[in-house]
């Protein structure tokens, strides 16, 4: 039996992005490829083929590693841009 992740990799798709949102104050993104825009009102990140746009007030990147980040603040919207 082939695992789902292996299937995606087989299909040429990278590791899928895993996102956890705690209320509207924290978003944990696993599988992030980089920060495109960073401001207190908007944070734009690249996740594989998608670009995710967080909008809100007082947004900060709490922690940033090579493939994950934590966004905190008052989130008002999340957009997925293809």
């Amino acid at each position, binding site marked *: 039996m082939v695992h789902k992740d292996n299937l995606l990799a087989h299909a040429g798709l990278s590791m899928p992005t895993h996102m956890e949102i705690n209320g509207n104050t924290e978003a944990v993104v696993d599988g992030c490829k*980089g920060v495109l825009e*960073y401001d207190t009102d908007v944070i734009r990140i690249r996740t594989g083929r998608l670009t995710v746009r967080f909008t809100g007030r007082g947004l900060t990147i*709490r922690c940033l590693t*090579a493939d994950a980040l934590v966004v905190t603040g008052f989130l008002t919207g999340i957009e997925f841009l293809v």
Partner: protein
Amino acid sequence: MLSLRITRWLMGYVRFSVIGGSPERFFNSSVRSGAILWNIASRRNSGACVFAGGYKGLRPSARRAGCRLRVRERRGLPFLLRRLQPHRGIVAGFAAFLVILVLLSLHVWCIDVTGNTTMDTRTVLSALSENGLYPGVRKSEINTKKIEQKLMLMFPKIRWMTINTQGCKMQVCIQEKTERPKIEKQEGACNVKASTTGQVVAIRVFAGTAQVKPGDAVVEGQLLVSGVVENESRETMLVHASAEIIAETTHSCEIQIPLRQSVRKPTGNRAVRRSLQLFGADFPLTFIGRPKGDYDISGVQTRFRLFGTLLPISLYEENWNGMRTVPVEISRQQAIGQAKKKLSEYERNLPEGTKVLSAQAQDRVKNGTLVYSASIKCKENISKQSEILIKT
């Protein structure tokens, strides 16, 4: 989160600002090179925190992004130690303090025995020491359950005991057994006889037939209350006779006091030996050997407490007083004084409940010894139970 903060503090971290260029590009490049950033501030006041060891590795990324980095804050243990480097004594002292604290916390400091009413604390401590519980022993080496069992076997008086570990203090809680009251044997037929010669003053018969009345003179072994009782239908039966027969008795004693005695007198030679006891080990504070000759020794152990907690330090002081034996000739009056003291001791040792009415004494000197003869008139219970042997 707390563990994360502690880890960051222990490893040390730097808070820096990113000036000019593209901060996003810098952050992406940095994390790709293996750095971990946190508390990242946005464009207007761009900056982040990074582990102290990883700060130098950020420079190539900053160059690529066209930014300049400026250190704002240095925090954590490595920076604290660097600041303290000129004051090596403080660091060494603190390290020594930590080592001593850790080492001492692994050992038993003191043992507190509570709950013992008739048992001597020193006896309990000595028994505990025999079984491996003494100040200074490693806490990991103590098997409290085993020690409790052994001590309960050693002291049958202990009803229940437990050994509690309170930090570095061992608390030994003891509960002693309540002694069983003596049960008087009420089985079998018996008479009540006189234990000594005297004149009966009062009679209280609980069971049996009285054979004497107040005012009668009785001799030792005389039947006072018979265990043979006759009922209304003139039938006889045997009972366990019991009575309280109060009689006036006379006790005579002879005390001999030699007029030539040997008395120990202090010579004036005195030696004080002090030692510090730490975790059961003795550290002498005075370097005086044991004096030779005839000495009286008395010791005082001073234990120290801090906020009610017994400390493992105690001061032991030994006083050695030189003595010599001197032959002394005492006067007749002095000898009578000594004899009177012995007589009052004899009176105290008379059977319980005995009341001394009067005492008459005579003294004479015979072969250099004062012979003090006393005749003590007493009021006492002279009843003594005597079993009636029945052949079946």
